[in-house]
């Protein structure tokens, strides 16, 4: 199930802002270091202005300056006005997720030097743009997480040169067809070369941003697609292990920042069964899931008792989002949102890994969008989960930033006291 693949992030014009690097703050939680009380806004849903204390993750929560914090914010494209951050700050939000795009960073293929050595040509301007946006956000007191997002300007979401024969271990030039794309997604998990390239660009990114203040964390991979691999724990674990490996490279490049990872797809598939011990050992990690579930029933996973409980999402699941090709109407409920989040929290509790719902949003054409944002935010807040709403669901567009009628629901939720 790859419903999130259909979402149209590519429609968003990206505004890349380069931000200068800042210092590394001590963290607590999984990293275990004593905390300097994060300021401002630690322990609340909002932060005052100024770069907030370094975010850390541990004991099942996010921490800043030694105090637990709940992240409430938006996920938005890098491109766009800095006033967006003022706006969301005015909504009492403290968190923004930005998309980092490999396709933008490395538009040209690397050069093989032999012996497994490749020479990459990264776009320093792109890095600078990202750094600037991070700085703009963090300086407004927002915790900023950079996610390794797809580039919808490419066919395969990652740089298209990866899908030519010289640049993948399968030696394939994948056709520009849905089948070819699916095959490429499938092969990725058995493609050391592509994974090597992925890790190298992530490591590069982290190294470039490590000096930048305000980077709260990096996310290894957005909504990892699994192609035609079976929707099983083994697949989930394969993906997790790959992310762990890449994450370790990130951590090596920038030890202070929280490492965010996903399981499989967007919905946290496989979380209840996943072996997260590697991430626990790494420490200062958090799980990101994206809520585009219909929430018409249950937890969104196949029910407990199902042989693939936790590994597969329920059918009739995707009701919404900014993709008009999934013409569903949201009629979900708080009950189901609660159950989904609770299921994830229950799964993560033994690992001590905190959860963030890093994306949730709906198609503006959905007659149930009010209910969607009402039930999601009610569910998240009820259980104290951190979240980031889809910016483009709350505003008419990324330029005017006019609020959608239902945005007050999210804004109200952002300002609601923590449970």
């Amino acid at each position, binding site marked *: *199930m790859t419903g999130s693949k259909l979402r149209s992030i590519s429609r968003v014009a990206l505004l890349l802002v380069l931000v200068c690097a800042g210092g590394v703050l001590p963290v607590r939680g999984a990293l275990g270091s004593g905390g300097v009380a994060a300021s401002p806004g630690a322990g609340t849903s909002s932060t005052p202005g100024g770069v907030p204390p370094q975010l850390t993750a541990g004991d099942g929560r996010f921490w800043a300056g030694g105090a637990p914090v709940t992240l409430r914010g938006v996920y938005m494209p890098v491109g766009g006005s800095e006033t967006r951050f003022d706006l969301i700050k005015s909504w009492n939000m403290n968190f923004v997720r930005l998309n980092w795009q490999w396709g933008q960073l490395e538009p040209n293929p690397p050069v093989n030097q032999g012996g497994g050595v490749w020479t990459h040509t990264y776009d320093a301007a792109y890095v600078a743009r990202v750094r600037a946006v991070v700085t703009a956000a963090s300086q407004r007191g927002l915790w900023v997480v950079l996610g390794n997002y797809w580039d919808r300007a490419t066919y395969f979401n990652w740089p298209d040169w990866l899908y030519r024969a010289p640049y993948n271990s399968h030696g394939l030039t994948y056709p520009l067809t849905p089948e070819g794309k699916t095959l490429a997604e499938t092969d990725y998990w058995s493609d050391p070369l592509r994974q090597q390239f992925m890790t190298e660009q992530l490591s590069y990114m982290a190294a470039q941003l490590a000096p930048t203040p305000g980077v709260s964390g990096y996310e290894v991979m957005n909504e990892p697609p699994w192609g035609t691999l079976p929707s099983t724990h083994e697949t989930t674990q394969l993906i997790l292990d790959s992310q762990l490996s890449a994450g370790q490279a990130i951590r090596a490049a920038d030890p202070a920042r929280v490492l965010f990872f996903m399981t499989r797809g967007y919905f946290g598939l496989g979380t209840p069964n996943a072996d997260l011990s590697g991430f626990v050992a790494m420490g200062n990690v958090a799980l990101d899931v994206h809520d585009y579930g*219909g929430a*018409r*029933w*249950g*937890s969104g996973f*196949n*029910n*407990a*008792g*199902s*042989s*693939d*409980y936790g590994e*597969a999402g*329920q*059918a*009739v*699941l*995707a*009701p919404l989002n900014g993709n*008009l090709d*999934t*013409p*569903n*109407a*949201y*009629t979900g*409920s*708080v*009950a*189901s949102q*609660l*159950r989904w989040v609770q299921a994830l929290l229950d799964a993560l509790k033994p690992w001590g890994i905190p959860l963030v719902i890093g994306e949730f949003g709906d*198609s503006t*054409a*959905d*007659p*149930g*969008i*009010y*209910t969607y*944002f*009402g*039930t999601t935010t*009610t569910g998240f807040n*009820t259980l104290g989960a951190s979240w980031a709403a889809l910016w483009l669901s709350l505003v008419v567009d990324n330029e005017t930033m006019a609020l959608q009628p*239902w945005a007050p*629901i999210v804004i109200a939720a952002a300002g609601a006291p923590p449970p």
Partner: protein
Amino acid sequence: MPASFVPRWDAAVSFLPASGKVVLFGGSPNKPTETWQNDTWIHANGKWTKGPVAPAGLTPRGRPAMAYLPEIGKIVLFGGANGAWPPALADTWLFDGTAWTLGPAAPAGLTPRAGAGMVYDPDIHKLVMVGGTGLGSYNDTWLFDGTAWTPGPPAPAGMLPRSSFGMAYDPSMRKVVVAGGSGATDVWYFDGSAWSAGPSIAAMGPRERVRMDFDPQLGGIVMVGGIGPGFVTSDMWLLRAGAWTKVTLGTPWPPARLDGAVLWHPNTGALMVVGGVRDLGLDGSVGLADSWFFNEVAPQVASVTLSPTQPTENQSVTLSTGATTGGYGKLTTRYSWYVNGAVVEGVGTRSLGPQYIRPMDTVQAKAQITDSLGIVGPDVASAVITVADRAPALGQVSISPNPGFILTPLVAAVTNVRDPDGDPVTLRYAWTIDGLAAGTDSPILPPLGFHAGAAISLTVTPVDSWGMAGPVGIATDSIVGGLTGTNPRPGGQIYVSGTGFLPLEGVDIRLDSTSGTLIGTVNADLLGAFQATSFIFPSPVAGGPHTLYGKGKLSGIVGTGPITVVPGGSILPSYLPSGGSTTFTGLGFVPGEIVSASFPGGAVVQGPADSTGTVSLQPASPPEPWPSGTLTASAPSGTLAVGYTVISKLSGPTAGAPLSPATFSATGYGASETVNVSFDGGPVAGAFVTDPKGSGSLTLTLPSTFGTHTVAVKGATTGQSVSASIAMKATMTVTPASGPVGTVVTIDSGPGWVPGSTVHVEWGYGNIVKDLVADAGGKVHTTYAIPNTVPGKFNLWLVDTVLGQSAYAPFEVK
């Protein structure tokens, strides 16, 4: 449903009994281009039509709770969701089949919600509403009596919040049942006052977006469709008797769906499934507008036929069934067999093995079908058949020894006894002797009633264990050997002859048994026979039939022969005068029989024969002419005559006075014989002629002198003579017989003295005081003065020295 019906999520459906209508209200959009609904659809007479337009307040909504409340005769609708946030629908609406009207306001605690379950609980006469989701996820209970909502009992621990779940009232349990919608498998019962845990739906797994209702045909609550675990399902589950069972899907079958309404449609007599959302495209965008009915008809076969119709006990009986009608899903047929009306335990197949049947048993089979829903059809019974029994048979029947012997048991032998069914065979034996039934039902015939020449017949009938008789076998035999004896009198002679013994062997002849009284021993000749041989028959022996037993001393062969012991007898004495009695001793009479004995013309005397056949009687002989007669003894068993000799007899006075008349009678003389009478050997003093009985009498004058005289009578013809004595004692008189001394007494005596002889008078014996001379008439007469003496009694004597006769008379001196 009509084309104008927009397929939807979250429609509420309920049955309105009064009008027999199914009412569907509202629903949620499938697509972004759609919206929430507040239309009413009514199913009646097999079709859906659009109902009344909702009033202004009854805004579009999905997932309202809806159920019929008999107390007000209306459908009650509560809440729902309409896409707005925060949830605000907590209104109650009532529908009477014609129009919606606003119901009472919800109390403060009854928060807006959608996806609550609601059902009527007849035990408390209220609607029970539970769960739902609004600003939160709920597990609270609310009751509605038609007038107001009141809080129900709190949810117990473990009763999870739920929404869009199955809820129905089970009249068999008298409980409301809640299942699904919680993400878990917990099921809950509500008894009108409290919730309690019910049977888990673990077998189906967590089930969401599902509905259910009580199906009276199935006797349980039926859950149809829903999702979980995994995918949308078309499953149907039945909660009955406290357990969930999965119903096998039939063909056709409603496609998998969520949110399909499930309700029992009383007018149709079927479970109705309406609408919902399909699982196509995994996005829930395809709504359903179909209606399905599930009507259970109890399954049954048209007929049950048994084959063969006349089985033997060695055959299996197989049933075949006619066409099956009704039923649902996998049909399980329970075959039951009845033998003689009793069920055969443990046999549930289409065949009844031979081990269960026996000849003459009645066999019947029944087939009863239970379908996958547990609906049990009627028992369809076959015709009753009867197990046949084939007759047994036998080969040859023989008797040994053949010929047989008198006292040797006969033994039957039968060959090749068989029964086609393998039944145990009993041989029944019927013996006859000379055509008469004999013996018992035994292969051995005891030698009872055997006799030489007896014809023995044996009929053997084979009978199987079920009473079936086969063709009989017949054998014959004859009895050889035996004794022939004359009918003896006890103590008399008997002549016995015999056959059938070994040559030259000695044969003991005994009476009535081989160990009875030995009559004698005789040697068989070279042919094993012996001729009539005389033996003295034992005495006493009871009269009547007896059997002679001859037993070969070497061979042991026993031969018998019947004899009849006849009466015999004797008298003692056997010489009898007229009037004389004798003792008759009878032998050989039948014990107990009355034996009569009498002389000719004499009195009959009777007496019973004792156990030995002996009787002793004392008959008296009447006058009979000389020389003899016959005594007759008779009894039912026979009559016999015993001869005796007549003794002549003289009867007359034994004393008399001289010259006085005396009559003499005589018997035992010849008939009409002249009989002469004489005294003292003198001449015939008289004669008479006897009568025909040989008797007669004569009166004569006695002799003239005192003393004893002999009178003799003698037949002139027969010469029989009998004599007797007659005494004529001297007598005297003294007159007076007393007086003082000196009294002169007169003494007279005679006739009787010898005339002229001297007769002494004595005073006291030997004291002759006077002599007298008898006169011619033989008389004496004198007087005598009593001498001086002392008073007392004294005798006066007359003494004749010639005759030696004397007489005396007393005198008392005073």
